[in-house]
């Protein structure tokens, strides 16, 4: 059986899939809003960035994450730099968590993720309401945080399959 690595271009594209997904999701604001479920939304970029930076995935460049944040702000209509700051804070948190963790545990990661996204969403909400006088519904942020937390574990299992495919 031919391994992925020997296929050259295909392997390269496959190894850059998280970056591609990150950019597609920020450009498309991939959150199933059209399902018209009240308050339902989740933040896919948060999950993706958290997981791959925690795994120290080599193709996730911080600069690309930063640019994805700028694009996200432009698409949503937030002041430029807000999402970039959020994404960078996730990267710092994962980097710190990686440094202090000797034996990784998925459940610990999951709850650490909840803590981080809660802090970041609180920070986002505070900046937007206090400094930019935006009127926002807090409930939207809370539900978004909750669903992002729930979806994390689902996406993690998918991402693990992806990483396994990459190692093979």
């Amino acid at each position, binding site marked *: 059986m031919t391994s992925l690595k020997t296929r050259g271009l295909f392997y390269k594209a496959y190894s850059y899939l998280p970056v591609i997904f990150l950019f597609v999701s920020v450009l498309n604001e991939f959150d199933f809003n059209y399902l018209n479920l009240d308050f339902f939304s989740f933040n896919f970029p948060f999950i993706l960035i958290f997981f791959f930076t925690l795994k120290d995935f080599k193709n996730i*460049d911080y600069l690309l994450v930063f640019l994805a944040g700028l694009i996200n702000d*432009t698409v949503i209509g937030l002041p430029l*730099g807000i999402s970039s700051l959020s994404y960078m804070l996730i990267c710092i948190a994962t980097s710190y968590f990686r440094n202090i963790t000797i034996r990784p545990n998925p459940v610990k990661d999951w709850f650490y993720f909840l803590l981080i996204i809660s802090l970041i969403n609180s920070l986002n909400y505070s900046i937007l309401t206090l400094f930019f006088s935006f009127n926002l519904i807090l409930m939207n942020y809370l539900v978004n945080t909750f669903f992002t937390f729930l979806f994390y574990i689902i996406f993690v299992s998918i991402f693990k399959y992806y990483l396994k495919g990459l190692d093979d």
Partner: protein
Amino acid sequence: MASSRDDFIIAIRSAFLKKSTQQKFSLLTLVFFSIFIIVLSNLDLKAVRYLKIGINELVYRSSFVVSIPENFIKNTYKDIKDYTTYFREYRNIKEELSEFKSKDISSEITQYENKELKELINDYVSSSNKILAKIIVDHDSPFLKSIIINKGSKDNIKIGTNIYDQSYLVGRVIEVNYKTSRVLLLSDLNSNVPVTIAPENIQAIITGSGDDYADIKYIKQGISDQFSEESIVYSSGTGAIFKSGIPIGKIKIVENDQIKKFYVDFYSDFSQLKYVFAEIITKTELEKADQQITDNQQEPIDAKLKLLEDELAIIEQSNMKFKDENEKLKSQVNYLNNKIISFQNETEIQKETIKQFNIDTEELEFLRLNLIYSQKCQSRKLFNTGFKVGTPEYKKCIMNKGKIND
């Protein structure tokens, strides 16, 4: 203790500053850069503005391209759903169209009159032109309700330009790029529109709720009791942000535990928008444009005259129709009156017959009883106890079955 603090500091320092071989920037640099951009984007510098416009143009177009597959799936689902109700909707629309056509003429006259009056009040002549714009990005974010349209400063779109879905107000432009613009929808929490609620003629401000309705604010307590579900909401034009008289929605009353809540139900469904109209308004100073006004004034007057002539013709036609109908109704009334008279005569005859029948019945009874009791009631020569035949007393006696003293 000191060791654990050192570990923490090392971990933090490493998280902020350490960059592996593939990373071009450390996280600390990028965090500072993010904060720098946040501050910079809020300074209204010309260079920053142009840079922002450039980024917006590029990102909006990219977002449009990337959203094509998702939009295709969404639209296909919507189309299939629509096909199932097409015929019924077609019939309803046809009926509505005929109604609207008749209303259109008077509406146009009002518009011309309105225009003339406004020209008299203001010191400028305003002319508006609606241009069609396609929505290129509509992600229906739960946080901010806005859309991106494919018209920008190149097409004379300005910040504040009113955006319509048909003739209904949907929002206003809050960001203008060269070929694209961002429209803040009325449903957004940051959207405030001064409105008039008719027919109660109440002035209020409606604020987006983040959902598909708006809240009514800044009205006196108790005044909302006057609202009904028939009340319509249109822009009042106060503050000159929105044009006056643009329909927005209808009042929706929700009753929970005997507490009435009032919302504005938008005429337009913001989640179904594909194309919108942007109203480009050009103002010409009256003094500078005196000559132009004289020429232009002739135009609305002519148009108004033509419309009035049309309306007159329609009224005459309607009058003729009414006259014909009136004549028909008159002859019908006469015919019905005659019929009533003949029925009355018939009733009289029948009444007479019944009366005669009753008399005959009484007579017959008298004759029958007469045969039986005539002996008892007749007067005799020897005993003067009875009555003379043919007298009312005699008849009474017969009817009483021969009882004389009753």
